[in-house]
């Protein structure tokens, strides 16, 4: 059905820039803010769930998602593009597990996802993904937080923000972050950071928070280890009550 374009749409400008990637980053910057904070005993990732209308059933929309039991993911940018990457990430994790009978380390999974994103900046007839991802995982090396950009480049962060309010959010985080922060504090800080740029009323239905660690352990792959889970609306409500 598809006649593939055999040439790349992302090409160098005379100044040496890949403008399609820059434009993709602009698309991300229009997306709602997401935060990730690494603590000594876990990681928290959070985002605003901005629904355009009260008619939307917000239980059908999941922005913070799990990739495998010990890795969670959140995005800023174009929702449909995220769905594709989430499916590819989950498949990559299962593919690894099938061969080695254990889930990949966060670093390995991030490499897989990032290389997919890079392919779409070079392959024929496709555009880059309009999302930045925050991937949080807990493996033998401890908790680790990665950010992946539309270009396919990735770095590990202690704390990061992506999306609309990222500059202010990162300034806020720089002030509040210290290397000994614990997961409870990290959740608290992430909510405060989101609140900085939040338009409207912040309720347990308008933000999504996922954590790894902090006592959530589960038995998987024959050993007890921290698992990724999303906070329930009542837990989020408790945190929100504490900050006001």
């Amino acid at each position, binding site marked *: *059905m*598809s*006649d*593939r*374009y055999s040439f790349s*749409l992302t090409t160098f*400008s*005379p*100044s040496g*820039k890949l*403008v*399609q990637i820059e*434009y*993709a*980053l*602009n*698309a*991300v*910057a*229009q997306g709602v803010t997401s935060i990730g904070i690494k603590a000594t005993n876990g990681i928290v990732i959070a985002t605003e769930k901005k*629904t355009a*209308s*009260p*008619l*939307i*059933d917000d*239980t*059908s*929309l999941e922005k913070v998602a799990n990739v495998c039991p010990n890795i969670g993911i959140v995005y800023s940018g*174009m*929702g*449909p*593009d995220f*769905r*594709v990457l989430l*499916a590819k990430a989950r498949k990559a994790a299962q593919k690894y597990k099938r061969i080695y009978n254990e889930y990949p380390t966060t670093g390995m999974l991030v490499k897989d996802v990032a290389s997919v994103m890079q392919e*779409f900046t070079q392959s024929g*007839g*496709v*555009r*880059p*993904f*309009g999302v930045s991802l925050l991937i949080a995982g807990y493996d033998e090396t401890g908790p680790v937080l990665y950010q992946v950009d539309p270009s396919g480049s990735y770095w590990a962060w202690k704390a990061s923000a992506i999306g609309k309010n990222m500059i202010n959010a990162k300034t806020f985080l720089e002030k509040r972050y210290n290397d000994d922060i614990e997961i409870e504090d990290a959740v608290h800080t992430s909510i405060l950071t989101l609140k900085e740029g939040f338009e409207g009323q912040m309720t347990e239905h308008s933000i999504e928070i996922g954590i790894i660690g902090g006592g959530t352990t589960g038995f998987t792959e024959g050993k007890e280890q921290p698992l990724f889970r999303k906070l329930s609306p009542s837990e989020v409500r408790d945190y929100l009550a504490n900050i006001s």
Partner: protein
Amino acid sequence: MSSRGASTGYDRHITIFSPEGRLYQVEYAFKAISNSGITSVGIRGKDSVVIVTQKKIPDKLLDPSTISHMFKLSPYVGCVMTGLIADARAQVTRARQEAAEFNYKFGYEIHTDMLAKRVANINQVYTQHAAMRPLGVSMILIGYDDERGPQLFKCDPAGYYVGYKATAAGAKQQEALNYLEKKLKKDPVLDFEETVELAINTLSSVLSADFKPTEIEVAIVTEADPKFRTLSTAEIEVHLQRIVEKD
């Protein structure tokens, strides 16, 4: 130092990013839906889901029984298509294929949200691959889920999909959504007849018209009868009568 955000001009012709990070082709696809001149509405009640759309016969010589924007995708999931009818048929055919394949592979009927996700993922591919343009249609899916009750989803050319309590698509989409937001603000519990009434009244209100039974199409799924079906003209007449009597 390069010039600020100069596009090559192709960003309006294929789905690549514009300097501001927009996809013009996707935005134009949305315009094509508004230009179709038809508005559709979907409402989820307590134990039923209803979709309603206008039935416009542009030429008296056309056979009205062949003109429909309501489609059954599987015995328990159906949809109303708004936009370019040719694109609509293409998407419906594909959705029917996906539903049938699912049933063949897994031995049970596909759920509404899964089919919606599949359609939305296919739409996303068109927004990313330059070789295929996005389709100029919005699909409002309905179905009855035995675990979660009545379901209403909408899939648009951007590849976006989400569940709704009520939604609209087409020419008067925004007016219909405003009307629905007002009516559903207090979270009323709607039984089947109230749901049908609200759907028909929404269309009447935003189009400032009283409908004859041949001027609208209605399709439903209910808890009592979870099979997707379209109402006959006689059944629509009954609902319209009840609305008139209420005034």
